[in-house]
């Protein structure tokens, strides 16, 4: 039988999926074991026990200095920044994207500048951002917003242009004005697609958040990683990186669920 026709059954699928994770864990344990045998204080590849202890310390014990459970505090602080920023970019992307995609005039005016601006490396803009927004949360949110919005706007504009011209014509033959078309035809069709686009921007958003928190912060997951990087505390960094990965994964999952539940018509329309 051809390799491409061999379909593993359910049990095999699970086993095969687990394999690489298992291999990674074993590889880590071996590497860590070798280094720790040479230098028991080695910080680069800490043992799982050391990491568990660090997690316990950060997540389950209040920090004596501030009385806070640092890991939860960091998570809360990062998530609130991230979600605020994503909410802002999503809103901007929806409005501007629909404008650019629907109105030829707006498309001609803003299409090119958005295309060019989306090529600017946002990290390089940080100093300017700090001056304008101050060192507080404003600058961090702005960085994420700048880093993700332009892509989202372009995505949205393309999606709007993907709406079959027939539908827009049809709406006009039903007497709809431009505003009514935007509100009742384009907007509701964009919402589920926007979720797809936002899902793709979760990764970049974390990246920018971490970069911003590295520069000026007093809490946050990125702040902690960069702070403890000062003394190579990989026993903290590794669990934090895993935790960020889990959070990103959960956000992705939540968006997929939202899409399925809130837009029951979309699955059918997409495959059609």
């Amino acid at each position, binding site marked *: 039988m051809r390799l491409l026709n061999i379909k593993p059954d359910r049990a095999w699928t699970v086993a095969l999926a687990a394999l690489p994770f298992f291999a990674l864990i074993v590889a880590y344990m071996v590497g860590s074991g070798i280094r720790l045998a040479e*230098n*028991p*204080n*080695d*910080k*680069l590849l800490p043992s799982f026990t050391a990491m568990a*202890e660090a997690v316990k*310390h950060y997540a389950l014990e209040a920090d004596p200095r501030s009385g806070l459970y640092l890991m939860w505090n960091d998570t809360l602080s990062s998530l609130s920044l991230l979600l605020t920023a994503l909410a802002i970019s999503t809103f901007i992307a929806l409005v501007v994207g629909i404008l650019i995609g629907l109105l030829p005039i707006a498309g001609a005016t803003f299409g090119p500048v958005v295309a060019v601006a989306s090529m600017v490396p946002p990290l390089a803009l*940080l*100093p300017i951002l*700090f*001056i304008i*927004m*101050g*060192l*507080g949360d404003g600058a961090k949110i702005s960085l994420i917003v700048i880093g993700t919005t332009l892509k989202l706007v372009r995505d949205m504009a393309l999606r709007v242009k993907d709406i079959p011209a027939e539908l827009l014509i049809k709406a006009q033959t039903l007497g709809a004005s431009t505003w009514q078309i935007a509100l009742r035809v384009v907007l509701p069709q964009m919402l589920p697609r926007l979720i797809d686009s936002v899902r793709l921007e979760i990764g970049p958003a974390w990246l920018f958040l971490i970069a911003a928190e*590295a*520069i*000026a*912060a*007093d809490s946050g997951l990125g*702040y902690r990683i*960069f*702070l403890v*990087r*000062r*003394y*190579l505390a990989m026993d903290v960094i590794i669990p934090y990186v895993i935790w960020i990965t889990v959070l990103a994964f959960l956000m992705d999952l939540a968006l997929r669920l939202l899409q399925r539940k809130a837009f029951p018509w979309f699955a059918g329309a997409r495959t059609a």
Partner: protein
Amino acid sequence: PSAEAAPKKDFKVAWSIYVGWMPWGYAADTGIVKKWADKYGITIEVKQFNDYVESINQYTAGAFDAVTLTNMDALSIPAAGGVDTTAVIVGDYSNGNDAIILKGKDKLADIKGQTVNLVEFSVSHYLLARALESVKLAEKDVKVLNTSDADMASAYKTADVTAVVTWKPIVSTILESPDAKAVYDSSQIPGEIIDLLVANTEVVKDNPDFGKALAGIWYETMTELASKKEAKEHMAKASGTDVAGFDEQLKTTKLFSTPADALAFTSGADIKGKNELVAKFLFDKALLGKDAKSAEAIGIEFPDKSVFGDKANVKLRYDATFMQAAADGKL
């Protein structure tokens, strides 16, 4: 393990941009490094880092044999990370290079209640702690906000930043603003922030030639810095300033330009007490390792073989051998 280790021939040194370490870049560019490496039949790769912390991490993880850092970071990162580290060259101490700057205020005591931007757990943090002590304040009287050194200058331009602790040349950039006042600097705690070139103890023990070459390179470069105009120009340029700017930085750096000066400081009586202050600070900040029970958890050995802290856990050693050899002209 040193017994069965094959004789090492290739060595790697990491350095980062700071006035007291600029000579390493010059030495590498002008062939001084190669000259001394050849003399001992070894190779030395000198690598510049943009990011100071990364250079230390690389050294701690074993990717480099030697690195430039401060005594405080030597204790909190490699030493606390179990890497037995030897200070081969004591290059200088900060004598005003690190400063606390307030916006629109000219008394240190005015810092009370302000948010202070600094690189957390760095020498700036230490300088702040010492400064607060001097005016009977504690860290809880201010709010510390971790801010990257690369962005300190632009951060100062923003309205909500009113107090920063940082080092030169950032200090010079910030002081260009008319409202910036340096209210405290490291010249008030001389000899406590020491800039070192450290090497892995095991490596220098097994390869004394490496230590000798490093000392040879350093002091030849010191001579050129004092005598050759191009040397200073080169270093000024590499640190992104001009000769005047570089001179301004040198002025606040107590550079030991001869091995004898360095020896005098390293073997002096003061150094022990100053290191003790640093160790206390690090212990307060829980930077001596999770299991550290006191500031004495890590032993620091001085040239006279006396030890501060745990004698069974000596991880940082001030070793005068190579500076001595340089002073004696035995390289």
